[in-house]
């Protein structure tokens, strides 16, 4: 983990074992940003979903994911936390995300991104086939 001003970065292996560490740091920084308890919980879920998308979908197999990392960058401000979750995986065309609105969960396709969008105030997805993925999400909700 490293810090520069109010920007903190965390790099974890592409392994579900370490997603709890990302959630832990998220909760700590969200509290530091004076977010409400509810907003902290929303952020924990959103970060967990973003990291899980990487471990489950960004690489074709374990061998491809070996030695790769998930890069998390946190921008902390009073009443606001922005988290960037970036991978070096196979990427995708964000236009091809399934529309989960009005559709109950019947499998896990797209539900992670849908939950992120539901829980964050702003979400931006930067991705393209072969170019990795970066999800930038912001939560605002001062105590």
């Amino acid at each position: 983990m490293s810090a520069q001003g109010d920007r903190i970065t965390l790099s974890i292996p592409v392994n579900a074992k370490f997603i709890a560490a990302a959630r832990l740091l998220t909760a700590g920084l969200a509290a530091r940003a004076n977010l409400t308890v509810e907003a902290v919980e929303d952020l924990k879920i959103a970060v967990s979903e973003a990291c899980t998308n990487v471990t489950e979908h960004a690489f074709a197999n374990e061998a491809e994911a070996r030695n790769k990392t998930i890069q998390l960058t946190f921008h902390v401000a009073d009443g606001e936390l922005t988290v960037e979750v970036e991978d070096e995986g196979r990427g995708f065309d964000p236009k091809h995300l399934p529309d989960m609105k009005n559709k109950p969960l019947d499998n896990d396709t797209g539900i992670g991104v849908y939950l992120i969008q539901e829980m964050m105030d702003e979400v931006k997805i930067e991705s393209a086939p072969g170019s990795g993925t970066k999800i930038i999400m912001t939560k605002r909700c001062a105590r």
Partner: protein
Amino acid sequence: MMKAELTVCDEVVALVVSGELDAYTSPEVRDRLAEALEQDARWVLVDLTQTEFIDSFFLGILMGAGKRAGEKDGDITVVCHRDHLLITFHRSGTTELLNVVPTREQAEELIVGWKSASEDVGARCQEEENS
């Protein structure tokens, strides 16, 4: 850290989970539920009273268990009272699909009702076969 206690009795598999359920910890729960459903169980009760975190990976496992129970003419109910977990069920549209209730007693009452209705249907089918 996650801890899961599973019991199977009279076609009901009851799972009490504490701690955090994510893509790392949930597969153990998935495997144990699947094993129970492959054997005698067809009614599923998942007690999240002591659970601190769930994500969509775990929701997918609950949906899968509910589907497998349904294939055996069974069903699933989930005990959950914590607001931050309920929000995840609500936003994913799974609250009703998974029959989420706030207390263990309500979940047990649901299952008793389902079993009773199922036995009535079974008895009617038997009567029709005999007539």
